[in-house]
């Protein structure tokens, strides 16, 4: 009888409900870094990732002979006082996804729910040119459990990139969900010695 009571107690404990949602309940596309030969690396340069948003915005461009051109979202009198020429222009809206990251072996980047393609701009601190990655994908909503909420999963269709610091890019796992698997390999120029 004691044994039966013990078994029933264990069953009652096991039957207790718990939240089964993953701890990191966010869907991201995971870009892992490699050198040109395919060796996994930590990218040492500081870089910022921005993405283009739908619509346009007004930008202020300051130019001065012999100096780097500066583009900002708001007018800055400091530049005009310093002899810069101000030009008002229209540009695509953008937002920063990853700000000044360094020494990273991968980045996790969210994807758009309703756009067919996302444009990511990698800006590096050590080189003036930027890289643009355009990734096409199909997005679809998904509910794993009601208690975990709704998410958008994605199927990567194609990817391409410019060649400022990037040698080439490759899709290794087209399904983007909250399992945190590697989705894209970014091969940077150069070889680790």
């Amino acid at each position, binding site marked *: 009888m004691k044994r039966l009571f013990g078994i029933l107690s264990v*069953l009652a404990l096991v039957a207790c409900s718990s939240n*089964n949602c993953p701890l990191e309940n966010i869907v991201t596309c995971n870009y892992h870094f490699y050198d040109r030969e395919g060796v996994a690396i930590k990218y040492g340069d500081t870089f910022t990732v921005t993405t283009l948003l739908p619509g346009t915005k007004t930008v202020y461009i300051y130019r001065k002979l012999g100096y780097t051109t500066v583009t900002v979202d708001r007018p800055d009198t400091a530049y005009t006082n310093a002899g810069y020429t101000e030009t008002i222009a229209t540009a695509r809206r953008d937002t920063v996804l990853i700000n000044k990251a360094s020494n990273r072996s991968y980045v996790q980047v969210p994807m758009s*729910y309703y756009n067919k393609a*996302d444009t990511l701009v990698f800006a590096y601190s050590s080189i003036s040119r930027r890289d643009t990655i355009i990734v096409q994908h199909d997005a679809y909503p998904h509910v794993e*459990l*009601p208690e975990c*909420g*709704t998410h958008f999963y994605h199927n990567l269709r194609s990817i391409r990139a410019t060649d400022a610091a990037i040698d080439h890019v490759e899709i290794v796992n087209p399904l983007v969900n909250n399992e945190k698997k590697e989705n894209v390999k970014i091969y940077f120029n150069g070889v680790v010695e």
Partner: protein
Amino acid sequence: MEWLSKVLLSTLLLLSVHTVGAQDEPIVILNETDTIRPTKYIAPLTEKPKLALFQGFTLSADILGPIIYLFSDYGSTEAALRLNLKNTYFPIIEVGYGKCKSTDVETNISYSTSAPFFRAGIDFNILKNKYMDNRLYVGARFGLSSFKFDMSGPNMTDPIWGGSSPYSYHDAKSTSSWMEFVFGVQVKIWRNFHMGWSVRYKQELHIGQPSYAKPYYIPGYGTTTDTSCWGGTYNLIFDLNWGKRKVKSGE
């Protein structure tokens, strides 16, 4: 000559004396290594009559599922027809109807379904005495349900790129299967009427799901919060003695 006749006569007399003594008391010659063993008692044979293969059908209904539905978002009702073979093996078919209507209080996602389910398997009476009307059994089931479900939730808004759309799906189709391992008890109450309970460990085999949702509740299985779960039944059982033979004919 006279001496020889005396020796022969005396020898014949001695032999005749020994022969008379042998009829009253046997001569036992024991070696030193021999031991005396007790005689083994063999009881007269009281063999029980052999049970016939076919021992009738059992009809049962679960009353725990409907009670659970009164106090939660889901539940089921089911009945089973069980074949009794030698009071030992019990092939069984279970048919039921499961229902779920729930809304998560935190995410406000609603789920609803109602559909039949089917199970087939076998129980094995593990009691040594197969002649008892009470039974303790273990068994296994294969479960199957083909059903439709509705799922809806708040609008999904893209926090970075913008845009919004409702999350609402109706009549999503799923065909799911699972295995169950059963431990149960059945006790005779009165005549052919029994009561009993079972505890079941259930393991998902296949969950059919569209891309936009995994079914939250599978009729007959339960909620899919994990790939396995526990369940149970409390059964009212009635023995149907159609064509039942207690003992093999001719024995």
